[in-house]
């Protein structure tokens, strides 16, 4: 028992140390970062954060990122819910192959698809909008969302659907009033996963935006200049990208275990 605790503690230490290093670095001045190796900032400073929160070209990056992530979550749930219902309740032509095709979209190497993506969204006039990034990320989040939701929905007995239909509910009414509340935790977990994949992705988000919808992760590269890297500012920007993730996982903490098995155990 003790051995287990110690092992787990050691692993958590391994997870936290690099993050701790980033956090304390964000409170240091650049002289201290480059000058000496200190485990705790000698001159505690908020300057790096003040720079970010007072400069619109910095903080708009966060607003942009959050906008397209939220948009992606909404679109993903709207289209994945009915699709997952169909997969969990019915057999239809090509169902298995459709499912694998969906999954195969996660396997396409993004590098070469960047240019076609760029041209596709430019040609329909979506370039540099939040919607473009959200739609592109749907390619990766929808397959996973359908997979997770289908697992949760299969856990709901079909008798419930049938009873509702006998009681005279229409499909839409039943779906929204009865079915969705029953798989609440599944929806929470799905939202978490689509948040996760959209929030951490950089390559597509950077390619599909230039000014108006530029994500924070792309703005971070600005800290590299001719005079070297502004480590403190870079660290502060990095810390601020971790916080939304922590908040989101806090909300779904009780469902994480089930959700990570994609509702399948």
């Amino acid at each position, binding site marked *: 028992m003790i051995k287990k605790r110690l092992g787990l503690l050691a692993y958590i230490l391994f997870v936290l140390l690099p993050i701790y290093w980033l956090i304390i670095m964000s409170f240091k001045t650049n002289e201290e970062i480059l000058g000496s190796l200190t485990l705790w900032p000698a001159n505690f400073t908020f300057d790096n954060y003040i720079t970010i929160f007072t400069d619109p070209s910095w903080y708009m990056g966060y607003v942009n990122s959050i906008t397209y992530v939220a948009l992606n979550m909404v679109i993903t749930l709207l289209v994945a819910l009915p699709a997952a219902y169909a997969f969990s309740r019915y057999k239809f032509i090509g169902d298995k192959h459709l499912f694998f095709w969906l999954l195969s979209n996660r396997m396409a190497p993004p590098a070469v698809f960047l240019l*076609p993506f760029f*041209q596709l969204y430019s040609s329909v006039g979506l370039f540099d909008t939040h919607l473009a990034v959200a739609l592109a990320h749907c390619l990766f989040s929808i397959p996973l969302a359908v997979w997770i939701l289908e697992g949760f929905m299969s856990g709901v007995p079909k008798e419930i659907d049938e009873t509702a239909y006998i009681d005279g509910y229409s499909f839409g009414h039943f779906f929204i009033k009865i079915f969705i509340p029953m798989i609440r935790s599944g929806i929470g977990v799905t939202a978490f996963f689509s948040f996760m994949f959209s929030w951490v992705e950089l390559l597509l988000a950077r390619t599909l935006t230039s000014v108006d919808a530029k994500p924070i992760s792309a703005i971070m590269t600005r800290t590299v200049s001719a005079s070297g890297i502004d480590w403190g500012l870079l660290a502060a920007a990095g810390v601020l990208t971790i916080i939304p993730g922590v908040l989101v996982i806090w909300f779904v903490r009780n469902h994480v275990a089930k959700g990570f098995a994609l509702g399948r155990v």
Partner: protein
Amino acid sequence: MLNWMAWTLPTAIFFAAIAGILLTMTILEVYRPCRERKGFLPLTTTRGDRLFISLLTSAFIHLTMLGATDLSIWVAFAISIVAMTIILRWG
């Protein structure tokens, strides 16, 4: 609008053929639904599964021929057709 997609006649024919096969399979499935069966492949398959397997196999036949030999692509194509027929019929 479609200029950037850089279409060529051969690729257009290729995609049209794929779309045609998918359409045929769908229509067949509606009028003569198939059942899972066990052939020489180590798993039970439906017609659609066998189509997928045979397409993937022929893709790799083409790649192997291109990488390893200097024979014309049409040789690989002919072998693939034979392989596809075998898998679809007896797989």
